[in-house]
C-alpha cells in the first residue's frame, strides 16, 4: 500500500514530522517497507514531443529522435522503444536527472557512436507502473504542457507499507489515519458527507439472483447522465501520480481515487452499452467474456458475474469487461458499489489465475457499509469534474449486514499481555478505532466497526489494545533455568552422534535439497515409489529423493570438476518412501572419491576402496555401542552398488533389519553420469534400523574382569573353496570355545600357486587364554584340534600343513 504524508493529512490533523510518522506506522503494525523520494528533483522530468525519428546508423533497434522539450533547440535523444514515433508526446529526462527506478543519474552519453542528450522514459522507469514496454504515451492534451514539468511540486515522499492480510481497512488512506490517530499521532478529520441532490430515479434495473453460492450480497448503483469524460484536473492527477498511479481519464481516476482513499472499489459502466438491466448471477460453464486486460476468459460454473441480457459484463469484484467499459466519449455511466464475498472472489481468481487490485481488496474484505458512502463520494466528484445529472442511489440486497458484538473482559488483557492499562484507556483506544463501547457489569460490550472483518473474538481486542498501546510496554520476564524433561530423545541423540562420528572420520557434512533430478534419482530408486512434486521450481528438481546418493553424486561430480580429487562428503537427512506424512527414513549417506593416498613421499599410492568405507561404518557403529563381533555381513546390496564389491551389515545374526550398506557405486552409473575419478565408494546407514539400547552408560559398564594367566597365540591356515566367506570361518572358530578364544584375526588371504583352482588359503590368528589357570601344552593342543576339526567339518576346509 503506497501512501504519502500529504494524502494522510487529508484525514489527519498533525504537526508531527515524517520521521515520527515512519516510526509510528511501524510501531502500530503498519510496517514501512520503503520510502522513495518520487518528488525530489522530479521537476526535471518534462513533457516533450518527438519531432522526428531516424534509424540509428549503427544499431537496428535504436532510433535517434529530435525532441521538442520546450527550448529553442531540439534535443537529440537515442531511444530503443518501438513506440517512439514522430508526433508522440512523452516524458523527457535531461542529463542530471535521477531515474527513480534505478536511482541512477543520467549523463550525456554516446550510444553506439551517437551522442544522446537525456532519455525518453517508460512508466516503469518512473515508478509509475510495471509497464516497461515502450515509452510513456501522453494524450494530445499534454501538447500545451510541452517543456513543463510532468510532476507537480510536492514535498511528500512515497511511503510503501506492507499491510498484513488481516487489515483490509488499511488499504485505504483513511484507515491508516484512523489507526495513527488512535495511537496518539494526530487527530482524525471526519469530513462532512457530501449530499447529492437528486430528483431522478436509477432507471436501470439491477437484480441479484438468489442462488446457491451467490458471491454478491449487496449491489449499490447510480446513473450519471450526460457526463463529459475529460482528463482529470491537476490536483487529482497529482494525487494519483504521487502514489505511483497513472492518470487515465476523469471517471477512471475518480473511482481509483475513492478506492485508494477509503478502500471502496467501484466500477463504472458505459450505461448505454448495457442491454436492459444488470443481473448478478452465477456463471454458466463455458461462458466467455473479454476483460479489461484484453484477455478472453472462459468461465467455470458458479463464478459471480455481472451480466446483462447479452451476457457477461464482468467478473464481480475482480475485473470489468471491454464491452461496457468507459471511454472518453462515454456519455452516461452506471456506477457500481457492491459487496462481494471474499471466499467467492478468491476461488474465482485462483481458478482463472487473475490478480487485480479489486480482487486483492475484496478477498480481504471490504466494508459492507461503505456502499453508499463510496457512491456519494464518487458521484459528486464526477458531477463536479465531468458534469451530468446523478440519479438516486439504488441498493439491492439479498442479505443484511449484522454488526458483530463482543463482550470483552477487561482483565483478559493483562492475563495475555502481562501489563495493565486502565479501563478508561481501553475505552478510549477502542472508541478511536471505531468501536462502540458500552460498559456493562463485568465487561465491556463492544460493537465491532463494519470495516474490521478480522475482529470476532476477545483475543482480537487484546491485540488491538496492545498494538495501539505499544509493544515496548511489554515487560521482559527472564526465563527460569529449569529442566523437567531431557532435551533430546534417544533417537535424536543417535542422530547427533552419527553425524559427528562420521564427520570425525574425515567426511565433510553437506546439506542438499530433499528433492532431486528425476534422472539421477532413478539410478538409486530401485523399486521405490517415485514421488513427484506437482509444481517444482524446475524440472531438474521434480521429485523427492528416494536416496541421498543422487544429490551427493551430483555435487561430488561438481567438486571433481573444480579440480579436487580425493574427497569424502556425507549427509544425514530424510529419504522418502511415499507421499504421505511420515513416509520417510533418516539415512546417513557417505561418498568418497579418488585415492586414499596420493603423491606421498612416505606411503604407497592407493585408491580408496570399499574396506575404507567398511571401516568407517563398522567403526561408527562400534562407537555407537554395537559390538562388531556380533555383526553379520553378506553381499546382497541394492543394484546401484557394484554387485561383487559391496556388502550389507546386520547388527546380529538374526538379520531382521539392514543397518548399513557399503561398497563401490555401480560402474554403469558412473558411466551414465560421466563422473571421472579413480574410484567412488559409498555407504548408507539407516538410523531407524539401529536398535536403541535401553541401557544408560552407567548400566553398560559391567564389572571389570581380566585374566592375568598366560595367553598363547596360535596361527592357522585353512584351504577352502573360494565361495566360503571369511566370516564363516571366524564364526565357527569363535563358537568352539568362546570363553577361551578371543581376538580372531584374518591376517592373510591367498590364491594361486600351491593352492588348487577354485580354492583359497585363509590364515587366521587367535588368542587363547583362560581366566582360571595357565593352560598347559596338553590343553592348548586340545583346543587346537577342536578348532581344526570344527572348521574342517563345518566349512569343508582343510588345514594347510
Amino acid at each position: 500500500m503506497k501512501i504519502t504524508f500529504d494524502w494522510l493529512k487529508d484525514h489527519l490533523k498533525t504537526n508531527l514530522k515524517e520521521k515520527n510518522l515512519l516510526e509510528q506506522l511501524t510501531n502500530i503494525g503498519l510496517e514501512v517497507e520503503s520510502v522513495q523520494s518520487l518528488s525530489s528533483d522530479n521537476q526535471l522530468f518534462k513533457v516533450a514531443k518527438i519531432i522526428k525519428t531516424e534509424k540509428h546508423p549503427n544499431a537496428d533497434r535504436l532510433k535517434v529522435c529530435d525532441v521538442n522539450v520546450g527550448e529553442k533547440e531540439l534535443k537529440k535523444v537515442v531511444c530503443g522503444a518501438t513506440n517512439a514515433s514522430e508526433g508522440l508526446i512523452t516524458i523527457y529526462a535531461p542529463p542530471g536527472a535521477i531515474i527513480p527506478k534505478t536511482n541512477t543519474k543520467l549523463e550525456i552519453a554516446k550510444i553506439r557512436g551517437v551522442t544522446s542528450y537525456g532519455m525518453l522514459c517508460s512508466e516503469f522507469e518512473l515508478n509509475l507502473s510495471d509497464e516497461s514496454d515502450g515509452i510513456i504515451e501522453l494524450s494530445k492534451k499534454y501538447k500545451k504542457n510541452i517543456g513543463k514539468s510532468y510532476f507537480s511540486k510536492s514535498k511528500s515522499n512515497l511511503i510503501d507499507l506492507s499491510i498484513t492480510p488481516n487489515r483490509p481497512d488499511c488499504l485505504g488512506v483513511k484507515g491508516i489515519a484512523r489507526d495513527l490517530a488512535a495511537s496518539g499521532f494526530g487527530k482524525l478529520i471526519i469530513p462532512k458527507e457530501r449530499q447529492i441532490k437528486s430528483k431522478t430515479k436509477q432507471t436501470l434495473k439491477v437484480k441479484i439472483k438468489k442462488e446457491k453460492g451467490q458471491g454478491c450480497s449487496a449491489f449499490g448503483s447510480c446513473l450519471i447522465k450526460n457526463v463529459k469524460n475529460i482528463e482529470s484536473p491537476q490536483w487529482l492527477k497529482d494525487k494519483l501520480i504521487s502514489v505511483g498511479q497513472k492518470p487515465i481519464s476523469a471517471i477512471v481516476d475518480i473511482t481509483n481515487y475513492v478506492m485508494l482513499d477509503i478502500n471502496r472499489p467501484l466500477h463504472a459502466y458505459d450505461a448505454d452499452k448495457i442491454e436492459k438491466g444488470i443481473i448478478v448471477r452465477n456463471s454458466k460453464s463455458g461462458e466467455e467474456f473479454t476483460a479489461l486486460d484484453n484477455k478472453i476468459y472462459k468461465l467455470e460454473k458458479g463464478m459471480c458475474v455481472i451480466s446483462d441480457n447479452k451476457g457477461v459484463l464482468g467478473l464481480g469484484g475482480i475485473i470489468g469487461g471491454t464491452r461496457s467499459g468507459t471511454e472518453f466519449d462515454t456519455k452516461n455511466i452506471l456506477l457500481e458499489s457492491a459487496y462481494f464475498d471474499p471466499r467467492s472472489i478468491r476461488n474465482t481468481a485462483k481458478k482463472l489465475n487473475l490478480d487485480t487490485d479489486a480482487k486483492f481488496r475484496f478477498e480481504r474484505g471490504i466494508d459492507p457499509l461503505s456502499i453508499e458512502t463510496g457512491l456519494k463520494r464518487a458521484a459528486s466528484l464526477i458531477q463536479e469534474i465531468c458534469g451530468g445529472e446523478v440519479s438516486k442511489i439504488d441498493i439491492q440486497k439479498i442479505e443484511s449486514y449484522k454488526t458483530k458484538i463482543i463482550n470483552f473482559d477487561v482483565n483478559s488483557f493483562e492475563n495475555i499481555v502481562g501489563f495493565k492499562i486502565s479501563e478508561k484507556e481501553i475505552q478510549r483506544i477502542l472508541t478511536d478505532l471505531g468501536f462502540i463501547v458500552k460498559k456493562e457489569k463485568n465487561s465491556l460490550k463492544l460493537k465491532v466497526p463494519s470495516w474490521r472483518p478480522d475482529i470476532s473474538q476477545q483475543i482480537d481486542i487484546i491485540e488491538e489494545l496492545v498494538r495501539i498501546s505499544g509493544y515496548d510496554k511489554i515487560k521482559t520476564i527472564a526465563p527460569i533455568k529449569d529442566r523437567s524433561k531431557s532435551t533430546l530423545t534417544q533417537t535424536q541423540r543417535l542422530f547427533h552422534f552419527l553425524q559427528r562420528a562420521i564427520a570425525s572420520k574425515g567426511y565433510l557434512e553437506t546439506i542438499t535439497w530433499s528433492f532431486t533430478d528425476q534422472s539421477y534419482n532413478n539410478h538409486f530408486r530401485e523399486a521405490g515409489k517415485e514421488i513427484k512434486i506437482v509444481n517444482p521450481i524446475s524440472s531438474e528438481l521434480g521429485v523427492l529423493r528416494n536416496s541421498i546418493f543422487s544429490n551427493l553424486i551430483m555435487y561430488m561430480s561438481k567438486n571433481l570438476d573444480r579440480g579436487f580429487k580425493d574427497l569424502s562428503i556425507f549427509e544425514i537427512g530424510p529419504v522418502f518412501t511415499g507421499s504421505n506424512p511420515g513416509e520417510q527414513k533418516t539415512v546417513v549417506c557417505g561418498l568418497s572419491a579418488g585415492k586414499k593416498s596420493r603423491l606421498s613421499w612416505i606411503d604407497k599410492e592407493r585408491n580408496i576402496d570399499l574396506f575404507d568405507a567398511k571401516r568407517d561404518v563398522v567403526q561408527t557403529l562400534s562407537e555407537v555401542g554395537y559390538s562388531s563381533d556380533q555383526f553379520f555381513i553378506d553381499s546382497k546390496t541394492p543394484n546401484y552398488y557394484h554387485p561383487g564389491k559391496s556388502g550389507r551389515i546386520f547388527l546380529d545374526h538374526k538379520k531382521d533389519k539392514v543397518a548399513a550398506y557399503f561398497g563401490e557405486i555401480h560402474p554403469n552409473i558412473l558411466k551414465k553420469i560421466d563422473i571421472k575419478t579413480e574410484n567412488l565408494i559409498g555407504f548408507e546407514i539407516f538410523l531407524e534400523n539401529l536398535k536403541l539400547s535401553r541401557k544408560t552408560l552407567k548400566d553398560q559398564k559391567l564389572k571389570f574382569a581380566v585374566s592375568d594367566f598366560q595367553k598363547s597365540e596360535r596361527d592357522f591356515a585353512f584351504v577352502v573353496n573360494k565361495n566360503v566367506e571369511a566370516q564363516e570361518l571366524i564364526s565357527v572358530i569363535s563358537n568352539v570355545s568362546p570363553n577361551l578364544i578371543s581376538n580372531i584375526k584374518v591376517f592373510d588371504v591367498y590364491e594361486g600357486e600351491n593352492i588348487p583352482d577354485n580354492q583359497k588359503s585363509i590364515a587366521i590368528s587367535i588368542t587363547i587364554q583362560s581366566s582360571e589357570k595357565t593352560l598347559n601344552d596338553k590343553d592348548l593342543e586340545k583346543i587346537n584340534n577342536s578348532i581344526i576339526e570344527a572348521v574342517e567339518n563345518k566349512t569343508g576346509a582343510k588345514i594347510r600343513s
Partner: protein
Amino acid sequence: MSDLKKIRDEFILKLKGKLDLAELNQIKSDLFGKNGLVSSQFKKIGTIDVSERKKFASDLNIIKDELQDLINLKINEIEKANINEKLEKEKIDVTLPERSFVRGKIHPVSQTIDEISSIFSEIGFSVEEGPDVENEYNNFTALNTPDNHPARDMHDTFYLDDKKKKLLRTHTSPVQIRTMLKDKPPFKIIAPGRTYRSDSDQTHSPMFHQVEGLHIDKNINMGHLKGCLNYFIKEFFEVKKIKMRFRPSHFPFTEPSAEVDIGYEIKDGKIIIGEGDQWLEILGCGMVHPNVLKNVKVDPTKFQGYAFGIGIDRLAMLKYGINDLRAFFDCDYRWLNHFGFDPLDVPTNYRGLSR
C-alpha cells in the same frame, strides 16, 4: 709377587688397551668364566692356611671387584659409542610431511541447530520433530489458516498431489500441532527442521531451515515470550547486551503477533549484532491463537502461551558472516571446509558454544 697381584696387573694392563666388545667378553670369560683365573682362585680359598685365608679372600674380592668394574665400564663405553654411532646414521629430516590426514567438518546449519538446542535446553525446552511431507490440515487449517485465507498466498507451497492435500511443509509450525495432539499440556518445545517454499532467487532457497518454539502452560504471557527471546538472542550471538524491538505483525496462528528486530551496525564491513541504530528482522512470534488451541483440544481458558519461528540459515549467516544463502546447499568443497565446524566442537551447556 703373589698370583693375585700378577693376575691383576696383567689384566689391568690388558684392559687399558683398545678393545672391542668381543675382546672384552673374552677377557671377562678368561677371568670370571667357569675355569677363569679369578674363579679358580676362589676355588682355592679352602686350601689356604687358616691364618692367611682371611686376607687372601679379602684381597681376592678386591681384585675381583676392581676388574669387574673396569670391564663393565669398558663395555658400557663401547655400547654407548655404538649407539651414538648408530644414532648418527639414523638422523632423519623431520621437516618432511607427516602421513596425510583428513579433517571432516560439520555443516554450519547443523552446528547452529546444536547451538540453538543447547541454549533452549538450559531453559527447559525439549526438541520435537515432524515429517517434511505434511498434510494441508496440519500445515494450514489447524494453524487457523483455512483454505481461502489470503495468508496462504504468503507461502509458495510445493504440492505433492493435484488436490493440494499433501505438501512439503512451508514452516515448522505443524510440529506444534503434532506435539499438542500427541501429548497433554504443558508444552515447552523447540522443533528445528527443513522447510520448503517454491521460491528461488538470490535471497531465497526452495529449501531452508526453521526452528519453531512453543511454550504453553498456565499464565504464560507476552512478557515471558519477550524474556525467552531476549535470552536466546543474547546467548546465541554471545553478546552481553542486545537491542531488540517487538513490532506488531500478523500471523494467522498467533495473536497478538510480533516480528522481532535486532539492532546492528556495520563496522569495517562486518556486521555487529546488538549495537547501532539499524534494525534487522530475525523472527516472527506471538501468543498462540485460541483457535489453534481449540483445534488441538487444549482448553484456551485454562492454557495459553507463545510460539515463535526463526530462520536457522539466516541466523547462521548473521553469526558467521555468510553472505549467500544458496551456498549452504551448493556443497562446494571449499565452502564446506571454510564454514564447517570441527566435529569435536560440540556446543554444550557447560563448555559453551565457542572454543
